[in-house]
C-alpha cells in the first residue's frame, strides 16, 4: 500500500508493505543511503534516525509506523542546532575511520545532546552503548560529544 512520509522536510509517497523496515525505504526506495544497515535487529545502531526527534533504529521500525511523523536522517541532521554542533565536533576531533557506523553515531549523539546539553561520561555510555564501531573510534566519540556540549 502507499504511505506518505515526511522525511527531512520533504514529502514522499512510497508503495511498499507497511511492515517493511523504514531503513530499506530510506535507502532503496528513496535513495537516502546515508542511513546504514548493520545488523537488522537493533543491536548496532548504524541505522539510527530521528522520528519526531526521538532516535529510532530504522532497521526494525515498520514504515507504517513512520506515517504522520517527522523523520530526520543524517542527510539533514545538520539543520538542527545540536546536529550541526555534533558534526562540527566530529570534524574537529577527526572521529571517523571507515565511517560506516558514523551516521548512526552522529544521530544518537545528536539526540543525546538535544535531551541532555551537558552529558556526563555515564550519560554518554548509557546512550552511545547502543552504537557499535568496529574501528574503535569510541574514545574520540566521547571527546567529540563533550566538545559539542561545551560549544552549546
Amino acid at each position, binding site marked *: 500500500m502507499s504511505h506518505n512520509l515526511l522525511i527531512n522536510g520533504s514529502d514522499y509517497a512510497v508503495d511498499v508493505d507497511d511492515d517493511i523496515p523504514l531503513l530499506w525505504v530510506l535507502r532503496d526506495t528513496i535513495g537516502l543511503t546515508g542511513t546504514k544497515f548493520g545488523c537488522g535487529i537493533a543491536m548496532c545502531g548504524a541505522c539510527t534516525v530521528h522520528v519526531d526527534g526521538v532516535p529510532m533504529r530504522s532497521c526494525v521500525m515498520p514504515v507504517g509506523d513512520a506515517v504522520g511523523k517527522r523523520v530526520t536522517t543524517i*542527510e539533514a541532521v545538520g539543520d538542527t542546532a545540536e546536529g550541526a554542533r555534533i558534526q562540527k565536533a566530529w570534524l574537529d576531533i577527526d572521529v571517523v575511520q*571507515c565511517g560506516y557506523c558514523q551516521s548512526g553515531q552522529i544521530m544518537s549523539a545528536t539526540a543525546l545532546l538535544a535531551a541532555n546539553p551537558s552529558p556526563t561520561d555515564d550519560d554518554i555510555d548509557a546512550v552511545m552503548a547502543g552504537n557499535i564501531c568496529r574501528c574503535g573510534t569510541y574514545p574520540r566519540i566521547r571527546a567529540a560529544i563533550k566538545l559539542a556540549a561545551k560549544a552549546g
Partner: protein
Amino acid sequence: MSIHDKVNVSVSRRHFLIGASLTGAGLIIGLQPSPSSAAAGDLEPNPFIRIPADGKITLIMPSVEMGQGIYTSVAMLLAEELEVTLDQVVLEHAPADPTRYANPLLGDQITGGSLAIRAVYEQMRKAGASARMVLVNAAARGWGVAPDTCTAEAGQVVHAASGRRAAYGSLIQAAASETVPQEVPLKPASSFKVIGQSIRRLDSPEKVNGTAKFGIDARPEGVSYAAIAICPHFDGKLRSVADKPAMAVKGVKQVVRIEDAVAVVADNTGAARKGLAALAIEWDPGPSGDLSLAELEKRAEDAIGGKALPHINEGDVTKAEAENGPVHEFVYRMPILTHSAMEPMNCTLHVRNDSCDVWVGTQVAGRARQAVADVTGLPLEKVVVHNHLLGGGFGRRLDVDGVILAAKIAKQVDGPVKVTWSREEDIRHDCYRYLNYSKITATLGPDGMPVSWRHRVIGPAVMARWLPAFTRDGIDLDIMGGAESSYAIPNKYTEFVRHEAPGGMLTGNWRGVGATRNIFPIEGGIDELAHAAKVDPLEYRRRLLQHKPRLLGALDLAAEKAGWSNALPQGKGRGIALSEDFGSFAAMISEVSVGEDGKLKIDRIVCAVDCGQVVNPDTVDAQIVSGIVYGLSAALYGRITVQNGAVVESNFDDSPVLRIHETPKVEVYIVPSSEAPGGIGEVGTPGVAPSLFNAIFVATGKRLRSLPIDQNDFRRV
C-alpha cells in the same frame, strides 16, 4: 622479522606515463560530487596524478580506504612533492588494474598487511616530484628562463626574479611535450611541509554528513535488490526450495537458485528479506553435517603432536634442553574468529551479454575483476570494477567469495542487482581466523634467562591458497610471522604444523595477521619464564633485547608512561607485551583490576610505538587505538562455535563486540624516529591479549593461556 620484511621490493615502477587515459575511474571523494572521467587534454604524468586545465587536481589512490587513513596519507605524500595544498585536490579510487596499481611490496593490487605506506612512501613522493618537475620545466621553457630559477608552491610555478607565476592547469599543454626527468631528487625530511603534520582526514566531511559512498550504497539506474540465504553447513548444498511464498510478497520479482545459496530479488532489500524469510529452504548438510566445535578442537589438539615442518633453527635446541632442564612448556590456544566489519558483505553487478559492471568495496580490486570474469566468462577487459570506500576491512575484504557469489546470482538477473548479506550471513560465512594453537618449550640457564626456545605453531596455511609466494617448502610464512620472537636466546627452533579447517569453511587473514597469532604465546611465554625466574618482567625483557634498540626504546617509553616502577595495590596488575612487525616496534602495557567478586576491569592500556618516519601523527594515534579496541573485542568476546557443521553465532547479540562503555582509557605515545616508515594499521592489535593475560596473572595469580577471556572468573587463587 616477518614475511612482510622479506618480500622482494623489485616491482616495475611506471612513473611517467604522460597522456595515457584512465578508464573505469571510480567514485571521487572530496569536493566533487560525481564520478569523473579524464577529459581530453588533462595531464596525466603518471597513474596517480591527473591535472586538468581548470579545477582541482585528481589524485588516484592505489590503496583502498577502509578507515586506516591511507587516502589522507597518500595524498600528503603526493602533495608534499607535487607542491599542492590539500584543498586543491580531490581523491579518486584507482580502477582495477594491477599493472598500474599493484602494491610494490605485494606485486598485486592488494591493500593489506599494513604495507601501504611502507610500499609507496618513496613511490608517491617520486610521482609527485616528477610531475612537478615536468610542470616547472614547461613553465621555464615558456618564460625562457632556466628551470632551476623557478620554484613551485601551492599549485603554481613561480619565477621569483621576474615575479611571474603560472598555475599548473595553465601549463598542461606545454608540459605534455616535456621530457620526463630521469633523476627525481626528493626533499630531505627537514624540508617537509606536509609529511609529519597531523592533517585532518580528507574523507571526514562526507563521512560526517552521510554522503560518503560505500559499496553497499551503489545504486546504478534500474537496480534490483537481493537478499541471500547461503547454505549454513560447510560444504553443504541447496536441496530444494519453492518460489511461491517469496513471490507472494509485494515487490519480490524473482527467486534465484545457485548450488549453495538462494537469493530473493525485489524492488527493495526489505521486500527481498521478507520474501527470503517466507521461504522453506531445504539444505543438504553435506559431508561435514555432524561437525561440532568440540570435534574441531579435538582435531587441533591432536595436531599439536602432528608432523611439523622446520622453520627456523638456530643453535642446538635439543642439546640445550638436555643440558639445562627443567623444561618449561606452555600451550596457548586461540579460537575461531570473525571479522564482523560494520558494512556487511555486499556486491552490486550488472551482467550483460558482452560486459559487466561491478560496484563493490574490496581490498583486492584486481582479484575481484578476475573473479567476475571467471564466473561470467567475459573477457577481463569487459569487466569494470567501481571500487568504493570500505565499511571496514580487517582482512575480510581480502577475499572475493562475496563477489563470486553475487556474480553467480547476477548472471541470472536482468539489469543490475545489489546482493546484500544479512549480518547473520556475514557472521556465518566469514573467511574465519581459524583455530591457532602454539606450544612453547623453553629451558633456563642458571641465571634464569632462557637458553632454548622451541615454538611449534599449529594452524592453517592461508597463504597456500591466498598468496602462494608467501610460502616456503610447505610453510606458511605469514602464520609463522614473528614466531621466532625478538628475544636474544642462543638456541631457537620454530616449526609449523599445518592444520586446516574442515572443507567448506573458508579461512583467511585477520587484523594483525601472523603477529596476532604469535605475539600472544610468545609474550605470555616470556612472561611465564620471567616469573619462573623471579625476575621483574620488564627487566627480564630488557636483558633479552639489548640487540633491539628500537623495541627497547618503545618498551622504556611505555614503562615510563605506564608508571611501571610504581607499586600497585593487591588485586591490580600490569602486564607487558611487545611486538615487532610491519616494520614497526610496539610496547603495550595493560593495567587491570580484579574485584572481590572476581570481575575483571581493564583500567588502561598504554602503547608506545616506533613506526619510523611518521606521515600523519594523528593517524598513528587513531590506528593504534583502533587496533587495540579490535584486539580487546576479540580478547573479551571473540569465539565462534560450531554445531551440526554450521556456525552457531549469528549477530551482535550472540557474537558481541566491544562497546563504548567497555572501552578503557588508551594512551598512545610515538617514539620520534627518522627510520623508514613502518606500517600502523595492525600494530595495535597483537599486544592486547598477551598484555592483559600478563596483567591478570599479576592481579590474580591465575595464568590464562586460552582466548577469549572469561571476564567473570577471576577469584584470586
